[in-house]
């Protein structure tokens, strides 16, 4: 069969684009070699991590090479509203960032956050207790001590030793009321009246909303999650929250195969060859959406001789630095950070002369050149905004 669109990549950009198209009645297939960045990242929708002004205002001041600069701020805002209407329980917007504690006790700005994290908002200060559960990926005393230095914030850590389970096992156990009861009993004896309670982000998987509300009721106070090392439970919930409606809208999701080649003719992509278990199939479609991510996800590769490759369509790569590619200081912005696929106004990857390489190929998310997602705190925001915008344009073009 011929699909309307093949989306390559199951991160937030691919999921957003696929869901948006499927909702419009398009025949969509999303194919990815594995689950994407969702399972690694904290699931907050960071648009731009600016401390003192609104993300909306900062968006309008980005240089023209930045992928956000392809989009009017209203479109970014619309993508966020679209997202919030589909994934239950997200709060916030582009007017002002939340300031959430990280697992080391740094303060991180995020525009739109899961409701289970919103209670950790440090704006306005307050008293916070962070609860360790014996989890090797969460150190409440250390994180609390860093936060305690902030004006108007007092923070302390408590360690409740459960057992040495991984975060996934713990999350499953939280879905049973008896564990929550034990924890509530132990905590209620130790909490001051106006303290908010932070847990590592392991409060359930499938029934997380229920787990969180139940803990708030049992503890009679705001309860919140703090994202910690992968696997990311909030990210897994986000993946489910996006892929389920995608399937319901008729989209197919195939996780496992690798896209190894493209079939093209007359400036169009006709199909992509996917390989799994030594069998290859060609997926044909009228249009294609590349959302394979950057170097972290394997969408881009750098070889030992310094050549950078986009791995599916062998697209030209923009922003490749002259030497050096990396600087000796870790926390500096690295010359390679903004490398990616350059696109035209319609999010179609371009040749060096600025013309679209294929008239029916689009790209979104971390594959795009011009952004430094970790440094600027733009990762998921960029994925939602460009996934949404590119799908909108693709839809219009068909």
């Amino acid at each position, binding site marked *: 069969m011929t699909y309307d669109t093949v989306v390559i990549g199951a991160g937030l950009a691919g999921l957003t684009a696929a869901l948006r198209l499927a909702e419009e009645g398009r025949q969509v297939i999303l194919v990815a070699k594995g689950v994407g960045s969702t399972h690694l990242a904290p699931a907050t929708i960071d648009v731009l991590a600016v401390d003192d002004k609104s993300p909306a205002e900062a968006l309008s001041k980005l240089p023209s090479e930045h992928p956000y600069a392809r989009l009017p701020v209203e479109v970014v805002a619309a993508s966020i509203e679209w997202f919030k209407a589909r994934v239950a329980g997200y709060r916030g917007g582009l007017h002002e960032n939340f300031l959430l504690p*990280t697992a*080391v006790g*740094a303060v991180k700005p995020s525009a739109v956050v899961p409701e289970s994290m919103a209670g950790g908002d440090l704006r306005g200060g307050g008293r916070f207790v962070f609860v360790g559960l014996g989890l*090797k990926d969460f150190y409440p*005393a250390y994180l609390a001590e860093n936060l305690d230095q902030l004006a108007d914030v007092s923070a302390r850590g408590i360690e409740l030793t459960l057992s040495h389970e991984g975060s996934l096992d713990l999350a499953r156990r939280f879905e049973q009321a008896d564990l929550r009861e034990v924890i509530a009993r132990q905590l209620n004896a130790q909490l001051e009246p106006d303290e908010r309670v932070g847990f590592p982000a392991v409060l359930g998987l499938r029934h997380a909303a229920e787990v969180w509300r139940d803990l708030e009721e049992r503890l009679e106070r705001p309860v919140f999650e703090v*994202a910690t*090392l992968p696997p990311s439970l909030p990210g897994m919930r986000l993946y489910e929250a996006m892929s389920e409606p995608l399937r319901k809208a008729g989209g197919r999701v195939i996780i496992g195969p690798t896209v190894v080649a493209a079939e093209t003719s007359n400036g169009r992509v006709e199909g992509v060859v996917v390989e799994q278990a030594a069998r290859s199939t060609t997926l044909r479609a009228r249009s294609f959406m590349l959302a394979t991510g950057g170097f972290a996800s394997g969408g881009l590769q750098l070889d030992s001789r310094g050549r950078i490759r986009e791995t599916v369509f062998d697209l030209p790569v923009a922003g490749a630095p002259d030497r050096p590619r990396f600087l000796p200081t870790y926390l500096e912005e690295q010359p390679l950070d903004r490398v990616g696929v350059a696109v035209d106004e319609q999010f179609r990857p371009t040749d060096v002369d600025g013309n679209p390489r294929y008239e029916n190929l689009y790209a979104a998310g971390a594959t795009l050149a011009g952004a430094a997602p970790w440094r600027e705190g733009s990762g998921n925001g960029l994925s939602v905004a460009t996934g949404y915008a590119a799908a909108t344009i693709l839809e219009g073009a068909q």
Partner: protein
Amino acid sequence: MASLETEVLVIGGGSTGAGVVRDAAMRGFKTVLVERKDLADGTTGRFHGLLHSGGRYAVRDPEAAKECIEENLILRRTAADCIEDTGGLFVSTPWDDPAFGDTFLEGCRATGVPVEEISVAEALQREPRLHPGISRAFTVPDASIDAWKLVWGCARSAQEHGAEMLIYHRVVRLERSDGRVSGALVRDELTGRELRIHADVVVNAAGAWAGQIAELAGCRVNVLPGKGIMIAMNHRLVNTVINRCKMPADGDILVPIRTVSVIGTTDTRVADPDDLEITEAEVEEMLDEGEKLVPGFREARALRAWAGARPLFAPEEVADTREVSRSHALVDHRERDGVEGLVTITGGKTTTFRLMAEAAMDAACEQLGVDRPCRTAEEPLPGSEAREFYTLGSRVRAREPVPQLQEIICECELITRERLEEAMEWRHTPNLDDIRRTLRLGMGPCQGGFCIYRATGILHSVERLDHLAANESLLSFLQERWKGVHPILYGDQLRQARLDDWIFQGLLGVQRLPT
């Protein structure tokens, strides 16, 4: 100012200094060792891990070859727990003259290095990844040796014999009285406090820095720091030490050690042993040479690059550091310069560290006018009493009986929380890099991606660090890991580094931590 009295003061905490402090303590001397950083932080912790058979020097440097094979055999008896008995192969690749094999055989026989020519088919069966175009192959008793284990084994043994180890103590000056060296003024690098150490004899075992120390006594010791870079590949591409059968040159050896294989090395004369930059050209050269040994080398994942400074002793100026003998150099400053109370031991290599220590202490004994025999060639290091070599699977095997009971903090190196806490209490340090040298924390494929946050959280609690000190521990270890990763970032290791960025910058936001 605080002061202490000792008989022997050893300067330098590399393998040589650790060997000397053990040797001295075992001869019954009251002994103190000072090291400006951590033990094995210098050249000893930055080599490829080769326990030489001597084969490498059999043609060019027969004296060094003889020393190597003698010491190789002694260490197999006394430091077995630090050694993996990989064996070694010398192979003639298509780029090497097969006739050199005869010269090599002759050299080995003349220096006592056990050698045997085997068929190419046998060599390829043993090491299937080797270049299929090799024309000759020879076996020698090379092995790999864990330098940190070795140095800490010596240190523990020395402590058992009453020696005191002062790490992070830098020598500020050597004390002189009546034309003799009578001790040193040292500064605690962590607290800034100074300490005067009175000693009957000072042994300068500062390796590539030995010239700087000797100068404090007005003596000239011409040590040429020779920079060697190495790259650890994230796999055991080979399980035998592989050498090119030719005159020693750059990038001609591949050493399997622990979970990696290390290609080395270069030899460039540098002015300052503390300033060892790794250039792109050097990395390229290593990868190109790697291809000649193991085709597809460039496609394998490189884990980390580092550089060490060889201490090459040259009686006078030379142009090429490869021309300088790898054999060690002992300078008795009483004899040579009329400065009593000072002995310098430098040059050499980790393989011959014990012999160097013996030579230094023999000279020291002579200066002190006493005759006490060396016992280090017989008595095994703590942990090596059973005379069993370690194997690649040792850590897994030790863990297997209790798979569920202990949490693993560093998955790459199988470090449990219990072992980590023990090491932290024992080392009593805010510096995670010290813990790395003790346990190999953060040395695996993810280069600390998962364990650095955990280790910081645990260190914060075990050492009762305040938040700023804990932040500093985290950030400085991150930077230390980056230092070795950024010169070889490509392929899968770049992908890994990006995941680590995701964790540290995206998830944890460490760039926003107060410092």
